[in-house]
């Protein structure tokens, strides 16, 4: 009985479990940063797609269709690697001497001096940017469609009163765009949230990695709580966690929609 109690108490006192709970911050951080970046990249992508200049338009369309044509995991893994290599290559062009290059045995980086250390914080930021880029492509599509959904008359009125192009864009077009974009962006947000489960693939000790480590069967008291293979219970917790986040997000977006839709969606009240 008291053994049982001690065992279950372990879930509150055991440092590994506490670290697990703490690792939720990585997931939440990546979701928030990734989500915000997705909107920003979405705005940029949509602006490119709407541009008057063909090359910019092509870049916008290329970005949104290629990224969407490839699995999110692939891009998620590729981008941090590619970014790291690109930075190292840039540094290498500055710092690598022929001797250093000759001394380098590994295939990459060109020389040891050009190496860039990536720790958890760096990986976390790169992962978030990666999420932002992937889902920014989806957001591009959503925002592009929403920009086109704003009635032309609303923009013409703004032009007719002498607003400059950027004033029309920011004061009317983008302000009204949100209402049409929110349902789609809500969907993108859910995707970002779910994609945060991939963080462990980038060497981040996130909730998924810990669930695997803690749930694995353990025989040795020195290593942690002794139990059989309990992984599915740990994953069930994550499963439920994500469903709850989805539920709360839905609520949140409904509230947001009500606010943003004020004046545009609400019915006549008098």
């Amino acid at each position, binding site marked *: 009985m008291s053994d049982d109690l001690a065992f279950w108490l372990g879930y509150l006192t055991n440092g590994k479990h506490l670290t697990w709970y703490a690792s939720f911050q990585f997931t939440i951080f990546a979701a928030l940063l990734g989500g915000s970046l997705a909107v920003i990249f979405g705005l940029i992508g949509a602006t490119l797609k709407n541009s008057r200049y063909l090359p910019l338009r092509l870049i916008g369309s290329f970005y949104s269709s290629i990224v969407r044509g490839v699995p999110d995991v692939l891009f998620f893994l590729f981008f941090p690697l590619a970014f790291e290599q690109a930075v190292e290559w840039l540094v290498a062009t500055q710092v690598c001497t022929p001797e250093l290059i000759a001394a380098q045995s590994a295939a990459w980086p060109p020389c040891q001096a050009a190496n860039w250390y990536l720790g958890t914080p760096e990986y976390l930021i790169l992962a978030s940017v990666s999420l932002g880029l992937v889902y920014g492509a989806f957001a591009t599509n959503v925002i592009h469609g929403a920009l086109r959904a704003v*009635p032309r*008359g*609303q923009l*013409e*009125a*703004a*032009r*007719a*009163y*002498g*607003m*400059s*192009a950027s*004033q029309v864009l920011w*004061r*009317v077009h983008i*302000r*009204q765009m949100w*209402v049409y974009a929110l349902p789609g962006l809500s969907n993108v947000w859910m995707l970002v949230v779910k994609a945060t489960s991939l963080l462990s693939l980038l060497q981040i000790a996130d909730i998924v990695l810990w669930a695997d480590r803690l749930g694995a069967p353990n025989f040795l008291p020195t290593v942690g709580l002794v139990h059989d293979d309990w992984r599915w219970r740990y994953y069930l917790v994550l499963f439920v966690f994500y469903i709850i986040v989805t539920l709360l997000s839905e609520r949140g977006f409904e509230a947001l929609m009500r606010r943003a839709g*004020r*004046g*545009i969606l*609400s*019915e*006549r*009240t*008098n």
Partner: protein
Amino acid sequence: MTQAEPLVSKPSVVAIRDLHKSFGALEVLKGISFEAREGEVVSLIGSSGSGKSTLLRCINMLEVPDQGSVSIDAEEIRLRGRPPHRQIADEHQIRRIRSELGMVFQSFNLWAHLSILDNVMEAPLVVQKRPRAEVEAEALAMLAKVGIAEKAHAYPNQLSGGQQQRAAIARALCINPRVMLFDEPTSALDPELEVEVLRVIKLLADEGRTMILVTHDMEFARSVSDRVIFLHQGLIEEEGTPDQVFGATRSARLKQFLNAASHT
């Protein structure tokens, strides 16, 4: 076809010379010239598709004409390029001039995300960069003038059509325009709402404001205008005082048009 009215001595506020405009293969305006003088009310009439809206939209360059010029207060709006890529040459100039032209759209086009008061204040604040306190006072005064002061904090879609149209008029007035442009200000409204809006426009006319309006309401055109212009197939078919145009119609087309108009 000059007028014998004293208005002729006043300076011309809007001057249009030889305006042409095509959409693809369709030539909508085929060379239109006219002037509107200080304090004059000019009505454009004509059958549907005759190019009235297009003409009005060319005045503030929402449509860029293919040929011809538009001058406001003797300042010509600069354009560049050849059709169909003719463009506004000077963004600063057009913005300045546009804020001299208060356009009221047929479908109101109030900004849906702003309250009525904010709609009215938006252009003075953002374009003319006038101080907020002053603009707010003036906006409230304008709303009172058009009779919807109590709706200042409502959103456009909480208003009836007539109230929306009057809000749109207040919005146009609040930039203190030299000229008001109206595109069928009442055609989206039912007869009751129409009366409300016409009352406001008449009020403006009586104040001596320069106005150019497109209308299908011959009664109204007759009672409010100093001059009536009949457009037909992209050209001015007849032009004159209401008494000349409606009383002593010369063109056969106009006669036919007026006949049809009186039947609906």
